[in-house]
């Protein structure tokens, strides 16, 4: 099993993801991180996103995406990590990555992983804007 899947309430580490994709034969490594933007919306500046997940089907679909990425692009290692619960502006919400002998399959697989994750994994986000809305509790995984 060379795919690393994670749904975590804790901070995601770019360095740890890079380590998970390292190996002597892996000359091409593509790593993508998505951060929460502090953009201004109708309710004010976004201070955090609350990520909600339906855990069991989410993990099943993440496994399917991971298998398909390795089958389709022939990459050796993959990372598919997503935060759950409250993620503050500036923090990493998602990391995907792929490693192969060369760059082309690594880029293609990483793009596939993030696109499929957004389309098919049961995760939802709710914006929290301004200091007042920051006081409520984030949703818990189910």
């Amino acid at each position: 099993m060379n795919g690393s899947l994670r749904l975590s309430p804790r901070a995601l580490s770019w360095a740890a993801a890079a380590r998970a994709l390292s190996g002597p034969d892996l000359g091409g490594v593509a790593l993508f991180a998505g951060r929460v933007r502090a953009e201004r919306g109708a309710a004010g500046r976004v201070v955090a996103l609350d990520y909600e997940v339906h855990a069991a089907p989410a993990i099943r679909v993440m496994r399917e995406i991971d298998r398909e990425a390795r089958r389709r692009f022939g990459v050796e290692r993959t990372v598919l990590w997503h935060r759950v619960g409250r993620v503050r502006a500036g923090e990493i919400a998602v990391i995907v990555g792929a490693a192969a002998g060369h760059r082309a399959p690594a880029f293609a697989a990483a793009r596939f992983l993030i696109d499929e994750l957004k389309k098919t994994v049961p995760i939802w986000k709710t914006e929290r804007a301004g200091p007042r809305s920051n006081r409520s509790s984030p949703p818990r995984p189910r």
Partner: protein
Amino acid sequence: MRTGGGDKDLMDPGVGPSMAPSVRVLLFATARTAVGRSELDWPVPPSGLPAGALAAELAAAHPRLAPVLKASRLVRNGVPVGRPSARIRPGDEFAIHPPYGGG
């Protein structure tokens, strides 16, 4: 009559476990907002009922859920329901998945 050891009074219909057949409905994101709850215990016939009929019952009871349902996936025990005629049986988990928003 209490059975001791902290057990609930099984003779009290307001306290004891319900024996009526039901499914556990999970509501996420906009579906949760429309209903105002994240879970419902929904009664069904002992033989169950089609997923489409169950969704229609939920929409009738919670009118704000109706437009959300039109754009949502129906999920039985963690697996998307292929057809509205797929049967949801007592004890099943029935989830409403609005469009996803990860990343």
